[in-house]
């Protein structure tokens, strides 16, 4: 089995960080709470997992915006809200000028075809009983679309576009490798010629060599078809490679957002510092010469997030104001336009590393203790 590599992406042009004109997607104050049963045997209180807690995000036509963060930060929930697989608790989502925040199934039907998703697991996101042809043509069937030349021809074009053999139309998903299955999922997402694709960890389940094939394929699609992407991933290097703008999430909030060059070369939020410092690099020199900023403990529970700044329990720079006041996500004079940080004491990496040296023992202990339990009760 050989996969044809048709994609050889040329560098994608970097649009301005905040593209002018009407954004394709405009998210304001987006909130999603999941109710859970609280502790106590007799009088159970309903508590909320505050998965997404007020985020603003806009995506210009043809732009790729990356969402990064660790598990539980709300990045996947955000993706599902944008594609309206989940009902938002609050805030607004505007797509191409239309408010789709609480649109009913019927209202959203014409827009659904323009917003598609690519899922993480190529094994569970394809129906094992359907042929590849049926899987890729099902979006056309659901939406009653009959392309010129028939659905079969269109499916074969799509398979070819994603680097699969069009003759494999009648095969079943189990006959394909993980990378090829992910290509099938991409072909399905392309079937309706979407303008926005929400890709939720599209390459995390794949081996390194295959991961690069799929990243290049997606990059080719973005360039050739002008599709905008919300690219959700925990791998900071992959996001940097794929997205022109990147938002870092922590406990349901965006803590820093910027053009990729600005974010990766001049991060200003202590959490971004921690996150970037933790990424292992394959170059032993780079890995040895890096300024390390440590993360103490784990992320606290999103049921009862820390007051004020949510990162303060693990932050080496935290002071009293951080517990009392939530820092807004705002621009900073010394940074490029569009680079916004939610921190009371934003600064370069070295400042955070320096603060860590003098971080008192008790605070480290407290951070470890705060994040220890995975169970809210």
């Amino acid at each position: 089995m050989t996969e044809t590599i048709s994609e050889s992406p040329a560098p994608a042009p970097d649009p301005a960080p905040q593209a002018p004109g009407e954004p394709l997607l405009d998210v304001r104050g987006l909130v999603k709470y999941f109710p859970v049963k609280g502790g106590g045997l007799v009088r159970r209180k309903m508590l909320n997992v505050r998965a997404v807690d007020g985020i603003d995000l806009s995506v210009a036509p043809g732009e790729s915006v990356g969402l990064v963060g660790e598990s539980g930060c709300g990045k996947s929930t955000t993706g599902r809200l944008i594609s309206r697989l989940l009902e938002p608790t609050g805030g607004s989502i505007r797509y191409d000028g239309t408010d789709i925040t609480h649109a009913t199934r019927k209202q959203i039907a014409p827009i659904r075809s323009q917003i598609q998703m690519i899922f993480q697991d190529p094994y569970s996101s394809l129906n094992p009983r359907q042929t590849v042809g049926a899987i890729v043509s099902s979006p056309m069937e659901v939406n009653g679309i009959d392309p010129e030349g028939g659905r079969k021809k269109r499916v074969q074009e799509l398979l070819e576009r994603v680097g699969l053999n069009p003759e494999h139309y009648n095969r079943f998903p189990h006959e394909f490798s993980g990378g090829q299955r992910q290509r099938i999922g991409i072909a399905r997402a392309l079937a309706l010629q979407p303008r926005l694709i929400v890709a939720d960890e599209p390459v995390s389940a794949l081996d390194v060599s295959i991961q690069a094939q799929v990243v290049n394929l997606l990059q080719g699609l973005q360039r050739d078809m002008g599709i905008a992407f919300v690219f959700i991933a925990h791998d900071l290097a992959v996001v940097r490679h794929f997205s022109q703008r990147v938002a870092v999430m922590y406990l349901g909030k965006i803590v820093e957002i910027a053009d990729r060059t600005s974010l990766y070369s001049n991060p200003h939020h202590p959490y971004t510092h921690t996150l970037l410092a933790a990424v292992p690099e394959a170059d032993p020199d780079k890995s040895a010469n890096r300024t390390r900023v440590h993360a103490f403990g784990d992320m606290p529970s999103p049921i009862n997030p820390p007051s004020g700044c949510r990162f303060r329990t693990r932050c080496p720079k935290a002071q009293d104001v951080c517990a009392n006041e939530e820092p807004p996500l705002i621009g900073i004079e010394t940074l490029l336009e569009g680079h916004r940080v939610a921190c009371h004491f934003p600064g370069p990496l070295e400042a955070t590393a320096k603060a860590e040296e003098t971080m008192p023992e008790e605070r480290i202990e407290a951070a470890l203790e705060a994040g220890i339990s995975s169970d809210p009760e």
Partner: protein
Amino acid sequence: MAASTETTAEQPTGKGKGKGAPEPLGRHAGAAEGGSDAFLSVRDLRVHFSTDDGVVKAVDGLSFDVEKGRTLGIVGESGSGKSVSSLTILGLHNREKTKIEGEIRFDGNELVKMPERKLRDLRGRRISMIFQDPLTALSPFYTVGEQIAESYRRHMGANRHDAHARAIEMLDRVGIPNPKTRVNDYPHHFSGGMRQRAMIAMSLVCDPDLLIADEPTTALDVTVQAQILDLLRDLQDEFGTAILFITHDLGVIASMAHDVLVMYAGRSVEKGTVREVLKNPRHPYTWGLLSSMPNLSGDVDIPLRPVRGTPPSLLAPPSGCPFHPRCDYVDVVGGDSCSTERPALTLAEGRGAACHLTAEDKQRIFIDDVRPLLG
């Protein structure tokens, strides 16, 4: 290169004893391996499973050494045989369906033919293992403390009270706050990172000489991964444990391992110190792995260069060099040696790559084609 002096430690240094060890099949002629320091020594290991579709050659002629106080990283993609080899060392394979050939020598003991009863004395006592997913590796029915104490009581004959005290000591050592309270918690009370710490405590409770870590951080977030890697390094410095570290992540290898073995289709294709393999790789597959990885500082406009095609089936691996159907340099070698002749991994001072390219070609291709992509 300062780091290369490390490798000379692998050469037999007049102790003589290890030099007499026969090299199986003569495939490792001139190898510095088999020195008397080698604490775990695997020679020409073959692990074949019979399945309904035929024989799966999961490991097909693998040799390596792990020394005390050092970490050997085995890197490879899914199906390269890296996990199977580690399970075989501990005898954790299905004995009825698995055919094992070759030698696994651990501190003078031959493990391949060792009876289960004797292996059980080694497992957890002298060789222990950290698995990828701490939630499935820990039992939900016992407290974390009971699970740590169990192996201490079994191997050290300690009583309940002493073993409990030992469990608290271990939890403290792996950085779990309030160990006296936490020792009575169940695994579901712990977060992912804390569970992995508990599992490390469990595997180190008897002060093992060899620790096998099979993707120990793959299920964790990067910040937690960094904490666990720091912990493993500190513990190694303190106890001089030999570590066999299995991962698919070259970044983790760079920060964790002293020596690296790259596996492909059940075989080792490249070996050397971490610096040699990552800074000056000599095998086209290693080039492919490095150039498919995006990094944090390189030029974003340089496209990734993936390895084309898909990994081979281990039921019917390709003839000759298993990598040849995906290799870009078959024409440089010329003739049909890549498709007919299996290249040997010939080691000089522990360094080598199993490839038919000449040393000059490898150097030239790496400098001209590969290095510019690495940022």
